[in-house]
């Protein structure tokens, strides 16, 4: 069995020397595109040392039984693949209908990692979680860097600096890690989420939870948040605005699965914030939770507020982000690995009736046998 890891246009890699070795130890032939780990502190030599070979992208894709990478492939790349081969990566399936079609057409078994079910068992394969975690950490580091003051309290001979106030909006995995990191640095953290249990989770990290009575809300059975009604949003924004204006650093993380993220902070609110304060928007990619944020850019408003719209905060810690991503993929692979026979059972799994299929595979398999099979994306 042959595995090929494609070099990405961004700083993360889907395979690290450590995970490569684990595949190789199972008897898999591993090949990588040259420069795969360059930006995440893993030189090619580190891979070859553990027994991986270097191949051109084209060649690698052609002969591989499993292609792994971080982002979705191009349609051209899909067309190079063997029929019946596996493709494991993030696919952004809501935006990449053409790629899904190509994958189906080519007869590829394509796994979309963002569709990984949010169950306890699947957690070790869940890249959305593992990357959001790092993004949450890094959002605070970046905001701290841009902030014109310090986070911790200091009672010094030259006067007392009060702790910075940090406001975290959206307490998913990223929000939690943002809370933890800001707390560590000594900030006073307030957090908000529409889900009641998320507020408790914020408190479990020592943050103050902002409780706004919004009436009925909820999350999908996958653990992702539902979209709110307009009235709810208005009510929520009013309460948030007050906290925002009082804060030095604001972190927003509210993505809604497969849709445009809600606007949580309006221009007017940003305009009332103090000079030198910072907003990091982790949803900037999809349009942002903050009005005025520009994806992948750092903008400073007239009143001196810095808006961080980085696409993927996790890319700033590329080494660890890659390690986690690669480890998630490896766990996914292991899930179907039969130790006794040293065979990969995923191929047999997909032959099964839907009811008998593994829940995890059912959740994230998009195309197989020449068709799009995932409920959500079936045409």
């Amino acid at each position, binding site marked *: 069995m042959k595995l090929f890891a494609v070099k990405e246009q961004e700083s993360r890699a889907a395979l690290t020397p450590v995970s490569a070795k684990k595949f190789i130890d199972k008897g898999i032939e591993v090949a990588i595109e040259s420069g795969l780990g360059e930006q995440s502190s893993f030189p090619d030599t580190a891979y070859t040392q553990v027994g991986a070979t270097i191949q051109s992208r084209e060649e690698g894709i052609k002969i591989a039984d499993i292609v792994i990478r971080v982002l979705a492939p191009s349609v051209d790349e899909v067309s190079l693949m063997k029929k019946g081969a596996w493709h494991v990566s993030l696919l952004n399936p809501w935006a990449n209908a053409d790629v899904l079609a190509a994958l189906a057409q080519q007869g590829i078994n394509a796994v979309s990692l963002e569709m990984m079910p949010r*169950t*306890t*068992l699947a*957690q*070790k394969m869940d890249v959305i*979680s*593992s990357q959001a*975690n790092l993004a*949450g950490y890094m959002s605070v580091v970046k905001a701290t860097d841009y902030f014109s003051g310090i986070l911790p309290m200091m009672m010094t001979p030259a006067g007392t600096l009060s702790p910075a106030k940090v406001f975290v909006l959206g307490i998913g*995995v990223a929000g*939690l*890690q943002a809370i*933890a990191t800001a*707390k*560590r640095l000594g900030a006073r953290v307030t957090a908000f989420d529409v889900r009641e249990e998320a507020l*408790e*989770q914020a*408190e*479990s*990290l*020592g943050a103050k939870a902002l409780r706004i009575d919004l009436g009925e809300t909820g999350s999908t059975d996958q653990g992702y948040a539902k979209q709110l009604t307009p009235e709810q949003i208005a009510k929520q924004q009013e309460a948030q605005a007050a906290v925002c204006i009082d804060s030095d650093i604001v972190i927003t993380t509210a993505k809604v699965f497969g849709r445009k993220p809600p606007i949580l902070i309006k221009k007017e609110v940003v305009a009332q914030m103090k000079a030198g304060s910072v907003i990091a928007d982790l949803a900037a990619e999809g349009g942002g939770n903050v009005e005025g944020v520009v994806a992948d850019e750092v903008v400073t408003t007239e009143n001196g507020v810095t808006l961080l719209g980085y696409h993927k905060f996790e890319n700033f810690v590329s080494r660890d982000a890659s390690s986690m991503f690669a480890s998630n993929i490896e766990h996914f692979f292991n899930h179907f690995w039969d130790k006794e026979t040293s065979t990969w059972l995923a191929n047999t799994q997909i032959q099964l009736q839907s009811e008998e299929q593994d829940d995890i595979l059912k959740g994230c398999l998009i195309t197989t046998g020449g068709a799009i099979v995932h409920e959500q994306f079936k045409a």
Partner: protein
Amino acid sequence: MNQWIEIVYVVASVMFILGIKMMGNADTARKGNLLSAWAMLLAVVVTLWNQEVISFGWIAVGIFIGAVIGVVAAKRVALTEMPELVALFNGFGGLASLLVGWAEVKSTGNLTSLASISILLTVWIGSVTFIGSKVAYLKLSGKMPGRSIAFPGMKWLNIFIALAIIASGVIWMTMGIGIAFYITLGLALILGFLAVIPIGGGDMPVVISLLNSCSGLAACAAGFVIVNNVLIVAGCLVGTSGLILTVIMCKAMNRTLSNVLFGGFSVASSKTGAIVEGEMKGITPEDAYYVLEAAQQVVVVPGYGMAVAQAQHAAKELGEILEANGTEVRYCIHPVAGRMPGHMNVLLAEADVPYEQLHEMDDVNPTMEMVDVAIVIGANDVVNPSAADDETSPIYGMPIINTHEAKTVFVLKRGKGAGFSGLENSLFFRENTRMIYGDAKATLTALIAAFKG
């Protein structure tokens, strides 16, 4: 003259009191033992001045023989055999009391009813102590099988014998029929034997402690027989403090006294091995303290509940106290514990738990059977054995921390709440699991308080 003897007895009693008190503290224990030894010497020497004691020949012989045997036995015994030696000595003490009572019967013609009752108590307690200690000795030294020996109907037989003992005692007392005395004595010996054989070897230390308490009571009863204060005081002190000690020892083994004493019967009657599903058994922090205090190896498993309770500082403190007590403490962190990756790390780092004490699941699991106590602080899914043994469970296949393999598991949670995945947790129903209900922080604080008490 006799007045002064009595005063010396009072002094000896005070020394015994102080001696026992000092023996409860590691720093003064040895001195306390010495003090009580001096008290004994004083009591014995002064007794020889008593006008009732008129001949010293046999006494000298007896003391000489006893002392030689005692010294030799105590000096020769190997470290590992000390417990059985103590059992043996204890049996001798019980037998001596029995003999004192018996001798009183022989030497005194007309017994008051108080004396008669006292004699009966001396004989009964003495017999049980003697035989019980003897059996304990044999079991511990391997001269008799250590396992529980029992047969169906044993319980009823015991009850019958106990009634017979009382009956024959009453007959002797009221009607003065001499043979009844020997019958009651013999039956008491048999009862002592039957009471101890069903108890397993592992529980012997507790039994010895209880028998020790009994031998104190026997001495006390002998004191009533010969109307002697120092016997009453010293015997009674040993009787009650020994009882307390027995209870404490039971707690340290996470058992109750009745469980130890009568557990053997039930095992004998219902032989349906492995426990599958039981009930959730609660325990108070105070009782849990005794178990932890005696533990050599402890593993702490934190979960989301620790975070909710913000109990990390308390957890760290308990860990420190245990370490100071000579226990090895490890924190075992499950990768999905909490609600975000690294949740437990954040908290434990905040509480300054040293990096070296944090362990991964895979390091700890293989050693779990050596662990005396696993303390599960607000974790649930990550210690759910269904993940390992119940194929129908939605988390089947997830590696868990095998706390259920530890000798004892303490689970700290508020109530019967489920974990994130909403599953029932069979760990909580296991035989070796004890639930400590309440907010984790409050529970840990109570445990710490128990240690510092």
